[in-house]
């Protein structure tokens, strides 16, 4: 067996195990950490496919940024795992049946000789080939339309986040930092001129 095939099976096995643990782990923090492990292995799979940029982006964006944020959220929230698991066994038979049917179908489809027929691109690129450069070129030329659409979707997400969370509450005491900074000493001290109460005799 070639090293590449061996690596593929190694990464896949760990990936599957980690993915399974994500949904079965009792502790949500453990689930998030298993998801991180799953991402690392997916990145490894991408590396064996010579998609270096995607692999690094996955590690940096998902593991470095998204999952860390996720970890914070999970730690902040008080997740009652027993309540989450309510109805798990009641729905289990239906879900398991559906899952098994899906899995059987996938095995059936993927074991057709189509995917083994070599229709797919199989050769390696030369050593000086940079897929980062190629990805960049495609993003800003042929795929500029979907690229811009994705940016608009991000704008929609920002607007949606603002409209759903920004609240100006008037019923609580709050400080306005801008006003605090702009304050002048004249606002703080009022010098009052007044005559002495009694004339000295």
């Amino acid at each position, binding site marked *: 067996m070639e090293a590449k095939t061996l690596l593929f099976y190694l990464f896949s096995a760990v990936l599957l195990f980690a993915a399974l643990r994500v949904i079965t782990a009792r502790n949500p923090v453990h689930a998030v950490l298993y998801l991180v492990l799953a991402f690392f292995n997916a990145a490894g799979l991408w590396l064996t496919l010579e998609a270096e940029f995607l692999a690094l982006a996955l590690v940096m964006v998902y593991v470095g940024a998204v999952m860390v944020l996720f970890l914070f959220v999970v730690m902040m929230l008080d997740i009652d795992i027993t309540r989450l698991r309510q109805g798990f066994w009641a729905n289990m038979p239906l879900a398991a049946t559906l899952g098994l049917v899906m899995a059987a179908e996938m095995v059936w489809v993927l074991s057709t000789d189509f995917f083994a027929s070599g229709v797919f691109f199989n050769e390696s690129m030369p050593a000086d080939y940079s897929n980062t450069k190629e990805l960049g070129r495609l993003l800003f030329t042929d795929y500029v339309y979907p690229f811009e659409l994705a940016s608009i979707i991000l704008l929609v997400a920002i*607007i949606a986040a603002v409209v759903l969370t920004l609240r100006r509450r008037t019923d609580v005491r709050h400080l306005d930092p801008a006003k605090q900074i702009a304050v002048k000493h004249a606002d703080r001290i009022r010098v009052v001129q007044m005559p002495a109460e009694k004339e000295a005799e």
Partner: protein
Amino acid sequence: MLSNFVMPDLIPAAPELFLTIMACVILLVDLFAGSIRRLLTGPLTLVALFGCALMTWQGFGDPTPLTFSGMFIHDGVADFLKLFVYLAVFMALVYGRGYLADRGLDKGEYYLLVLFATLGMMVMISANSFLTMYLGLEMLSLSLYALVAIDRDSTRATEAAMKYFVLGALASGLLLYGMSMIYGATGTLEISLVAQALQAGVASKTVLIFGLAFLVAGIAFKLGVVPFHMWVPDVYHGAPTAITLFIASAPKLAAFAMALRLLVSGLYGLAEQWQMMLMLMAVLSIGLGNLAAIAQRNIKRMLAYSGISHMGFMLLALMSGSVGGEADLMRALDAYSAAMYYIVAYVIMSLGAFGTVLLLSRAGYEAENLEDFKGLNERSPWFALMMMIFMLSMAGIPFFVGFFAKFSVLLAAVAAGQIAVVVIAVIFSLIGAFYYLRVIKLMYFDAPTDSAPILASMDMKILLSANGLAVALLGPFSDVLIRACRLALLS
């Protein structure tokens, strides 16, 4: 390195570009205009829609159909559907304004999200690639999720938005998985190239059908047909009525475009397979939609179930395009123009019906139960008449628009030899007539429980009347609209 790059032709996408720019302008205006923003944001939104309509109208019959490296298609169907999307969004904005203002929800973000949803619909309608179809769908869905939850203090709306979001994400996942399978089998994301690959017959049929099943599930979710309909009643019920009106109208046109582009333009080679799936979903939707609507006491839920059955009818036409995988141009044209006409007719009727619900609501009062329609005739004979027209048209009673829409769908299905399905559809729409007629009975034969005068702005009253008259009077002229659909499909 970029020597082989050709600048894409931007003219066919002029409406989309204009709308994007206007949305950004409105965003800035709404941020910085201060106290006069209320006077600016709404009208500017309408200006943006009118500008788009003008550009789409100008671009009719453009000789360069594909642009952006084949990801954007500009054809008759796109122009036709886009014009109706503008109309539906315009009406939804006018109908919803008073309702939202009464509840303090007519913020600038509402207009922005509506505009971005419109942009998403336009992208979907003009998509010639799985990628742009998906991105358009996400843009539309994200805006809709936020719109449903825009009334943050209502737990019902939040719950509806949460359900919509979770189920919508699942549907997007299914759709993407199907797309990836078809990409794996054909090696391309471009819809017209997928069709060519299917014709050449190199792709593995097993993989294609596997992908197709997921694709159809994603489309069915967006249309809201059985068995992917669970979100429809809850979202329609939970969302503020003005938002329900919006969700029940223009996005249906985009979902129809998605079905047409993916199944007919792309996977026509698999018509035999998806016909079976569509037929099953159509029969189930017509049956379940009509039966469940009878049990509803809430008019928004009732209209939601009625929408499910209407989408079933539309699928009936969509599946009648080919028989046994054999393409017959005339029959296909008849079937797809019937489907297109049906969806347009449904959107117009649905706007009117939800518009009347909005008309009866006022500050601090939601007219969302059937009882609220009691004795409407005594309170306002004119709008009772309008509501009667919408209900009769939805029930498919001659000679309103809805009748001709149902009739052309059934004709197409008969031409395709689906007699059994047609009989089932007719029986269930007869059963369904009961709940439409019940609304009319409540309006005309029961005493009003609420005698408050109907307060609505003049523009809404005029538009709702025009909407009702259109449904009533355009029936006999539906030939023209069907012919327009056919022309749009041919180009």
